[in-house]
């Protein structure tokens, strides 16, 4: 699968002309196959930023380029062939099977009236196999556990064959085992990924670069070691953050306390 080069130039967003910006101009770049983590307190503008990348909210000004092409200069369908998203929305109880859901990923690749061909079916089968969902493929989506549902939604995004994958809080509401599975999945996909995460330690484990947002402003962009420093994290989240070395694994780990 071809993976894309994502560049955002001074993108910002506000709901309407006379309203304040929810996201002030921010620029960043994600190289092919790399993972960018977007972190920040609630209301920092993470969702707004992601929405502009997955072609849901058009940037008020600024440009998003995928492999040198302007994402907002192309049709919604063409953009959908470049960027896929795994969001927190859950399908309603409409009796769709796992395979039905994964097959939705082929929607932007089909012309208006053609039904899905053998080529599409093959891609869907591969996406299901890659997420190890074969044994569930005929199951009703409503009957799956949270972790299984998340894997189905990732398989759906893979069937879309995107160059960039956006994930919004993929570990939310999952137990620890499934959180770790999703994180290792992010590492193994080999796609250009933009992911928003709440857990800073997970973010520093899994991401090649971190974008730190607060109140719609960028407070840092760079490697996890630079951006998730004690000072920057303490200032952004209004806590006392300490970077400690775990004695057994020798890994860096952030701990947090309320400031006294």
């Amino acid at each position, binding site marked *: 699968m071809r993976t894309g080069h994502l560049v955002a130039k001074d993108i910002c967003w506000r709901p309407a002309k006379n309203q304040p910006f929810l996201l002030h101009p921010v620029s960043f770049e994600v190289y092919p196959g790399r993972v960018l983590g977007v972190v920040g307190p609630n209301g920092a503008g993470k969702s707004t930023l992601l929405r502009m990348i*997955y072609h849901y909210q058009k940037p008020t000004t600024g440009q998003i380029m995928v492999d040198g092409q302007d994402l907002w200069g192309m049709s*919604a369908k*063409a953009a959908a062939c470049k960027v896929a998203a795994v*969001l927190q*929305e859950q399908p309603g109880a409409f*009796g769709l*099977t796992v395979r039905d859901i994964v097959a939705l990923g082929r929607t932007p690749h089909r012309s208006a009236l053609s039904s899905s061909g053998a080529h599409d079916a093959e891609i869907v089968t591969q996406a299901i196999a890659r997420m190890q969902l074969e044994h569930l493929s*005929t*199951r*009703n989506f409503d009957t799956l556990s949270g972790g299984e549902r998340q894997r189905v939604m990732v398989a759906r995004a893979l069937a879309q064959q995107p160059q960039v994958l956006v994930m919004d809080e993929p570990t939310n509401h999952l137990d620890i085992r499934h959180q770790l599975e999703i994180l290792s999945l992010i590492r193994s996909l080999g796609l250009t990924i933009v992911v928003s995460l709440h857990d800073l330690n997970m973010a520093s484990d899994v991401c090649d670069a971190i974008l730190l947002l607060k109140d719609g402003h960028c407070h840092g962009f760079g490697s996890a070691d630079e951006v998730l420093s004690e000072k920057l994290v303490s200032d952004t989240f209004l806590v006392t953050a300490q970077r400690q070395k775990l004695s057994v694994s020798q890994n860096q780990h952030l701990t947090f306390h309320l400031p006294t």
Partner: protein
Amino acid sequence: MSERAAGQPKSRFPYVIGAGGLLLLFSISVAISVGAVSVPLHTVWSILINQVAPGTMEQDWSKGREAIVWDIRFPRALLACLVGAGLAVVGGSLQAVTRNPLADPHLLGISSGAAFGAILALMHTGMFLGLITVPLFAFGGALAATLLVLAVSQFASATSADRLILAGVAVSFIVMSLANVLIFLGDPRATHTVVFWMLGGLGLAQWCHLAFPFAVLVLCGAYIWANAGKLNAMTVGDETAATLGIPVARFRLIIFVVGALVTGVMVAFSGMIGFVGLMVPHIVRLLVGGDYCRVIPASALFGAIYLLWSDIFARTIMAPEDMPIGIVTGLIGGMFFVWLLRRRAR
């Protein structure tokens, strides 16, 4: 649903459609056969075949029977099929774009709007555009009610599934009140007819009227079926559907307008027949699974069968009186609604 049962719907689809087709033919035959004057099934078929290919059957029936079969009961049966199919397809597609398993043209107030428009034409404006006046006004009313429901749900920030239905019920009450004002202000001699028409009935079916519902069903049904993939995507969520390249707001509006068109025309010819759009798609999903490529055609088929049998029941339970069919579908649909609520609560 158990894993075994869920694994079969796709491969079961041709059999379900085949069996449904046979059941439809049988249901039409029965619908023509029973009534105040009972006509044996073989006579029904002989008359029908003789009408299509004159002279092929030896004529052993009276002129009166031929008139009952060909001029009264056959168009009535076909109208039942068209209305049932149309309402079921509209219900199924509205459920997807509102992501609400309780969506139904009746519950969302679209039928009330159509009734309002039809009453306006029947009692006040007169048929100044000919035969098409009532369906056209019904469509206008349905469309206005639809937009009103959307506006109310925006205004009340009622974006969640259950609250959209509440918005629909509220609009339905308001529009019904206005429709009743129209009846109250109208010619008292026409009141009885209009009130009976509103309760739902297929008794006014005539050959020359069938072209409108037929054309609308074929065109709108084909459009909805061609967009089955988008309907599937809409059940996941607005943002996810948008990331699949679907212009979500525009598509939802189109489905609402198409739904208003079908509902308006069906109401114009048959009055208010509720809950068909709610019930049939749910039952169909149990048979063929949730993929709208299969749900839409199967809903059309079983909607037709359901309304045929509702009409047979309504005509025979108090024979020779015709009970309004809306009473039958309301009774069955209301109980189904309660069952659906209970199932969703668990």
